[in-house]
């Protein structure tokens, strides 16, 4: 019996792939040729040497020394450090608040439960950007001017920022940190709550019948098991926080995205800036995912 090529399974596998490859390549060729033509019309050549030229703009928060005469590359580095500052502290603060609120959601105190619920439902159902605007404009803008700051114990508070002894942080940084952390904490709270509730009721009963008090049961029996369910979505929230930190531009905090955006506005280098942003955020995401995966493996149960 003659085998028709149209009916051969193996043929379709090969053909299917070939077709997809052709379509993708054709698409990319189309986009690429347009890009080439448009760039040529604008007189722009692709290349990264613009990074060496003078930046010419100032940056508000400078954790590492920076002047406007420094290069774009250095400015971007400052942006990156700023991003890392807010992401690192944000993850810490969000976890602290989130875990507390998550546990509070399951408290036997009715009032505490309702307060926690109110917190979660309010922050989760409004956009982060709006919350950042609110923090910055409705809260920090109302601080007294720099010349007449408010003093409380060792803390000095003004529109310019907060100062505790030698440590100084800008209003922009604080507004972003608080907005980002409290927002993410609301989601972390739900993750923690879900994780704790996923531990079978029998575990609580066994612990209680052994005489353990609720706090001890939570700490020694339930939470360690809940961690298995909690860690992956928790890692996801950390990733979200890292990505959401890019909203810093809305409150004038010079993070990586904000500095990149300014760089683009000044140089018109769309493709290069886009590549830099993508590579950096992807690397950051990968790093966080890796760390979470490592931790996740360590909390898995040992099974037969």
């Amino acid at each position, binding site marked *: *019996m003659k*085998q*028709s090529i149209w*009916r*051969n*399974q*193996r043929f*379709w596998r090969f053909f299917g792939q070939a077709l997809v490859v052709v379509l993708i390549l054709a698409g990319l060729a189309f986009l690429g040729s347009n890009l080439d033509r448009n760039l040529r019309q604008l007189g722009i050549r692709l290349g990264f040497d613009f990074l060496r030229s003078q930046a010419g703009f100032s940056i508000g928060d400078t954790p590492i020394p920076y002047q406007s005469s420094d290069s774009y590359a250095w400015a971007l580095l400052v942006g990156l450090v700023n991003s890392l500052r807010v992401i690192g502290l944000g993850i810490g603060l969000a976890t602290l608040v989130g875990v507390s609120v998550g546990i509070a959601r399951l408290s036997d105190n009715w009032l505490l439960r309702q307060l926690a619920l109110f917190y979660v439902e309010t922050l989760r159902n409004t956009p982060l950007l709006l919350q950042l605007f609110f923090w910055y404009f409705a809260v920090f803008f109302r601080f007294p001017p720099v010349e007449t700051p408010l003093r409380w114990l060792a803390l000095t508070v003004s529109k310019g920022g907060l100062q505790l002894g030698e440590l100084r942080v800008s209003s922009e940084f604080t507004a972003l940190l608080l907005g980002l952390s409290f927002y993410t904490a609301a989601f972390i709270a739900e993750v923690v709550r879900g994780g704790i509730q996923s531990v079978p009721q029998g575990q609580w009963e066994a612990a209680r019948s052994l005489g353990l008090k609720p706090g001890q049961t939570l700490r020694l029996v339930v939470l360690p098991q809940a961690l298995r369910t909690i860690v992956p979505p928790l890692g996801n929230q950390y990733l979200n926080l890292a990505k959401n930190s890019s909203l810093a531009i809305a409150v004038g905090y010079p993070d990586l995205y904000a500095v990149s955006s300014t760089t683009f506005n000044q140089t018109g280098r769309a493709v290069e800036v886009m590549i830099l942003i993508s590579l950096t955020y992807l690397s950051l995401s990968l790093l966080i995912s890796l760390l979470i995966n490592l931790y996740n493996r360590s909390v898995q149960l040992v099974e037969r």
Partner: protein
Amino acid sequence: MVHQPIIIAEDVHKWYGKFHVLQGVSLTINAGEVVVIMGPSGSGKSTFIRTFNALEDYQQGRIVIDGIQLSDDLRNIDAIRQEVGMVFQQFNLFPHLTVLQNITLAPIWVRKWGKGQAQDTALQLLERVGILEQAHKFPGQLSGGQQQRVAIARALAMQPKIMLFDEPTSALDPEMVREVLDVMRSLATSGMTMVVVTHEVGFAREVADRIVLMDAGMLVEQATPTEFFHNPQEERTRRFLAQIL
């Protein structure tokens, strides 16, 4: 009885990676025969019958179903699947469709029947398996035994020449096994070619024309029920019977 081979499997080999799951199995089944395949778990019996309708492929050997060679040719596979019906251990009914829709789906879309014709056939089959009143319910609302009977009706709706059964009663509560076996019994009486993988010894004894024992990917022995149960030739067959009887 005229011996008309409808399934011919010659020296079939299959590997899952390094694991040699079928080791040169050869079996011929005639039209109208009821063959029961038994064996310990992991013997490859399910894998073997699943090669008959190309749910599993094989690397070496030859399988011919109703004169059609089983190969990479899609047209052959399609033709074979229309002639071979299968009933699964887990029923695998489509939960988002009613019982009636489950049965009429393939005749409408594969055999291109009209809706009226498909529905008439479906209702007749439902009556034949004894659950006509469940026609408009969803699978989730039926008991296990009822679901499996729907599954049998669904396979029969395609008017197959061969029916494969892969442990059809293993997932059922004991009190429902009987109703399904009764349907299979009546099917056998009507002359359908059936290949049944099962542990149900009573069914095998009463209904099978031939019983085949598989173990560790090999066909160990085949005989009539009387011969198989009372006068097994192979040592492995004797060991197996000692475990199940």
